[in-house]
């Protein structure tokens, strides 16, 4: 019994020494944490695009463009006409970090009736009043932290389009992220 007690005592001592040794071999390293804190981008669709009232041709194809600056351009025969109604480009408001580079992209989805197709025109997007350019652009956020993005649209109408249709022909989605 007496020997057994001695052995347990030694083991206890060993364990205690081990605990004392461990802290003496630990090392430390520092890391630097960095972050760029920016204003979250917030996009609001401010206005829908509208083509107004358009004529369906009896023959040929009419291509109706609403430009990013709000103008109207048509190509096709004499039957192609913007007949009436307001012609409006799409409008987005983008809250972003002032002067930070932001990549914008407009994405078009067609939902026009058969015989008509909604798509992007050439140079579909204008940012903060600069000349309209491509569907994917990188530009500094406006100095006031609020950039205005306008988008145009194209409606191609063929004789097989419905003789009378009023409604949605598509959607325009604007995506934005910091560069």
């Amino acid at each position, binding site marked *: 019994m007496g020997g057994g007690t001695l052995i347990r005592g030694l083991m206890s001592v060993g364990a205690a020494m081990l605990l004392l040794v461990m802290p003496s071999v630990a090392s430390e390293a520092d*890391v630097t*944490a960095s*972050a*760029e804190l*920016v204003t*979250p*981008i*917030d*996009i*609001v*669709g*401010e*206005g*829908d*695009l*509208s*083509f*107004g*009232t*358009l*004529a*369906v041709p*009896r023959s040929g194809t009419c291509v*109706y463009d609403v430009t990013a600056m709000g103008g109207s351009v048509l190509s096709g025969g*004499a*039957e192609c*006409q913007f*007949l009436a*109604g307001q012609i409006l480009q*799409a*409008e*987005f408001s983008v809250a972003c970090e002032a002067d930070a580079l932001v990549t914008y*992209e407009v994405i078009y989805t067609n939902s*026009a*009736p058969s015989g*008509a197709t*909604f798509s992007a025109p050439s140079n579909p997007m204008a940012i903060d009043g600069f000349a309209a350019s491509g569907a994917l652009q990188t530009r500094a956020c406006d100095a006031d932290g609020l950039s205005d993005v306008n*988008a145009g*649209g194209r*409606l191609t*109408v063929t004789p097989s*389009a*419905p*003789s*009378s*249709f*009023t*409604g*949605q*022909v*598509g*959607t*325009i*989605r*604007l*995506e*934005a*992220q*910091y560069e």
Partner: protein
Amino acid sequence: MDRKFSYIGLAAAAALIGQQALAQSATVDASANVVATAPPMGLSTLSNVSFGTVTIPSDASEFCTYFLTVDDTDPALSWPVNANGFNVPHPQVGFSEADVIINGAWYNDNSGGSYDPPHESCAFIDPPSYGEIDVDCPADAPFSLTATATQDGGALYNGISFQVPGQDAVLSVSSCDGSRNLIVGGRLEVAGTATPYTGSVGTYTIEAIYD
């Protein structure tokens, strides 16, 4: 324990930065009102209206009104039809001395009676001629023609007034599938104070629109 919390804090911060890198988006609709329409009409002038040579009233206090009326039985589109609302049954040729108003009094021979104006001071000397306009109307659809007269300033100053016969300024056409000729008349009022004049007395502007 403090260091562990510190690491957790860094991880959270990194996650927040990662969120901001995600693209944000918004969507707007595009709408249109698409309608089938009749193809556009075209108008082209074939000849101008000419009143020829007319007389100036001999009495400075008088007015002569010269009508170029058009018979509505003409197979061509005739307009103005029955100028000023009067029944003027002149086949094909709708102008004559009979269609003269002197000082507001209408003198004509449509009653079958004799034509006897009070004097000879108002007369067509050389024959007038109608204006003619080609109306290209490819759709078989009703349309309306509207005329607006613009008087020549010089002629008006000289006591010569060119007008669209009032109530006939709008002509409705039931259908026109192809091309029709529009015959155009007019009305010219000449004051006794007018001096001899040769030239334009005004302009017709004619607008065609589908009803």
